[in-house]
């Protein structure tokens, strides 16, 4: 081991030990509000949510616990604010190694193919909580990578109806990374990326993430939800975040059944999503759409780049068409928690809906020439409950891309993921993820067609996640 590596190791060790302070009181924003530990809302670990987390979210983040409220004379109807604006900071430090053939030989040309420390890879600050009895909010401000600024924001307004166990609500939202399901989603299947148990290779564990539903989006959702029964979301949205003005030209429909009584000790869910409509690209939308799940919410883009990448005309019109089916089961086996998720997603390559003037003949969720589809199954098992987990996921997918010079019209794009998490102490966690990609997209001919940034078909990632 050379000196450089020893210095690397020691610096990481120093940061770990500084963070490794037992009995830390550091807690993120919502935990501060409800006065409960993270395990009250999260199953195994952040950000997977359990049925209580679902109830908290469907109630519009308005639930408070030990925190004092500022209330007026009118029984809290005029004003009902927490005395403290709750905030939290998330910090991701890590290491990424890919096995692509192009390794840079100088410091300025080195890539993840050389192995790359990312200190930090990402950092953001969250604000969240209660605005009044019926209104909550969540805002995430990106600090790194640049550009810094508003990343995600939503304002849910929720009223209890019926016997008090139903919530009727509306959410206004804008997101740079989480797509139209950001307004209201409480399943852990990747229907929205925010609750996936592995945040570092989401397209391998979730079909919705494979077809890249995590796009910039802004819109309005109406929802009806009961944590013991399920939820329905009807939304109008535009695939854009900045500028935030425009027409809500796309539709989002989501329905799911959730149940924690059917099988004792298990929280079950089954649902579907439908995306429809079109969007208008402006100078502010990135020029490339799709082309390999280059999701800005991911820390690592899936390693196929080049084949099928298309350039969005600016200005231009494009399709937003896809559907997905998902299921989950959260429970315990012999005292060990287990998360099981499965999902299927499909995005056609067809052209514009009728009535739309000439525009770009493509789909936001599939820039290829054939149907993009994916079936994913994933599991996370708590080896040491509340401390350590192992993860396994498999993807069977068609990319929607033809491979030039071959007879392949819809290249397969399969993946296998093995991961582990280890909670060092409160709010400090180490995540290890290894992904292997296979299929026609990685065959010899395809490889030769890849751009110089091709990152191979093996990825190893190690991330130290700190939230406080």
């Amino acid at each position, binding site marked *: 081991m050379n000196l450089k590596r020893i210095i690397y190791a020691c610096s990481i060790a120093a940061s770990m030990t500084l963070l490794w302070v037992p009995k830390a009181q550091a807690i993120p924003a919502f935990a501060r509000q409800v006065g409960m530990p993270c395990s009250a809302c999260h199953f195994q670990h952040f950000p997977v949510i359990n049925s*209580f987390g679902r109830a908290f979210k469907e109630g519009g983040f308005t639930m408070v*616990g030990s925190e004092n409220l500022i209330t007026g004379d009118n029984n809290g109807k005029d004003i009902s604010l927490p005395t403290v604006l709750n905030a939290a900071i998330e910090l991701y430090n890590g290491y990424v190694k890919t096995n692509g053939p192009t390794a840079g030989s100088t410091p300025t040309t080195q890539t993840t193919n050389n192995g790359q420390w990312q200190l930090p890879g990402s950092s953001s600050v969250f604000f969240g909580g209660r605005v009044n009895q019926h209104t909550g909010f969540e805002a995430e401000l990106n600090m790194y990578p640049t550009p810094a600024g508003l990343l995600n924001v939503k304002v849910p307004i929720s009223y209890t109806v019926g016997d008090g166990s139903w919530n009727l609500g509306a959410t206004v939202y804008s997101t740079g990374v989480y797509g139209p399901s950001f307004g209201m989603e409480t399943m852990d299947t990747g229907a929205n990326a925010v609750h996936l148990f592995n945040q570092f290779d989401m397209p391998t564990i979730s079909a919705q993430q494979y077809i890249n539903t995590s796009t910039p989006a802004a819109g309005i959702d109406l929802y009806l939800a009961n944590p013991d029964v399920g939820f329905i979301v009807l939304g109008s949205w535009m695939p854009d975040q900045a500028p935030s003005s425009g027409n809500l030209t796309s539709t989002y429909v989501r329905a799911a059944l959730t149940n924690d009584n059917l099988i004792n000790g298990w929280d079950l869910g089954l649902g579907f999503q439908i995306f429809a409509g079109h969007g208008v690209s402006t100078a502010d939308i990135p020029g490339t759409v799709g082309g390999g799940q280059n999701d800005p919410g991911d820390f690592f883009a899936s390693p196929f780049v080049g084949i099928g990448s298309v350039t969005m005309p600016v200005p231009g019109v494009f399709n937003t068409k896809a559907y997905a089916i998902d299921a989950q089961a959260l429970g315990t086996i012999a005292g060990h928690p287990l998360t099981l998720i499965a999902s299927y997603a499909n995005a056609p390559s067809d052209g514009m809906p009728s009535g739309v003037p000439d525009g770009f003949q493509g789909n936001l969720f599939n820039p290829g020439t054939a149907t993009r589809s994916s079936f994913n199954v994933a599991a996370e098992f708590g080896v040491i409950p509340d401390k350590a987990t192992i993860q396994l996921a498999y993807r069977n997918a068609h990319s929607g891309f033809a491979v030039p010079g071959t007879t392949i019209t819809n290249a397969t794009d399969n993946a296998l993921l093995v991961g582990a998490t280890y909670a060092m102490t409160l709010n400090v966690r180490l995540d290890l993820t290894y992904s292997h990609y296979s299929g026609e997209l990685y065959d010899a001919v395809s490889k030769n067609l890849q751009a110089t940034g091709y990152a191979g078909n093996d990825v190893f990632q190690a991330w130290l996640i700190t939230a406080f």
Partner: protein
Amino acid sequence: MYLNGLRIFLIALVISASGCSSYSGTSSSNGLGQMLFEPTGVQINSKPSGADVYVMGKKVGKTPMRISASAPFPENYNKANRSLYGKIILKKEGCKDLIESVSNKSVSSGINAVLDCNDGNNKATEHKANSVAPGHVAPGRFDDLNQKLEEVKKLEQKGLITKEEARKARERILNGL
């Protein structure tokens, strides 16, 4: 070459866990093995000890004991058990049942409960506040104490009570311990 990153990271992990830093050894009650392999837990102590501990309606042991931090927060939040979610109930013959909500503080500092028993040995003002009907959240005993002391301080700062009155009030509160 490919696994160099992993190797470096694991070495770093071992260095930090092996006690090179003074920080890693600050938890005198927690050995390295406990830190590495034990679940995040809630330590439950009671006075008198030997109280039965109930989590989600099931008896899980006697005080002093440690439970996993997620035990009071199971994946289910169904109506039938909703009043028990996030709570620990202590029962001992001759004492009133005591219900404690598991908070952030419980996870970091544990629960130190004082039961209100017939023999009067453990009676104090705060105990009554902690003995509440099932389904209701009992405020933390020391939170309550802290709140009272803060109130006295505020009244003194606002000039609503004299220094001497504040001192007596503090004395009365602390005598209740």
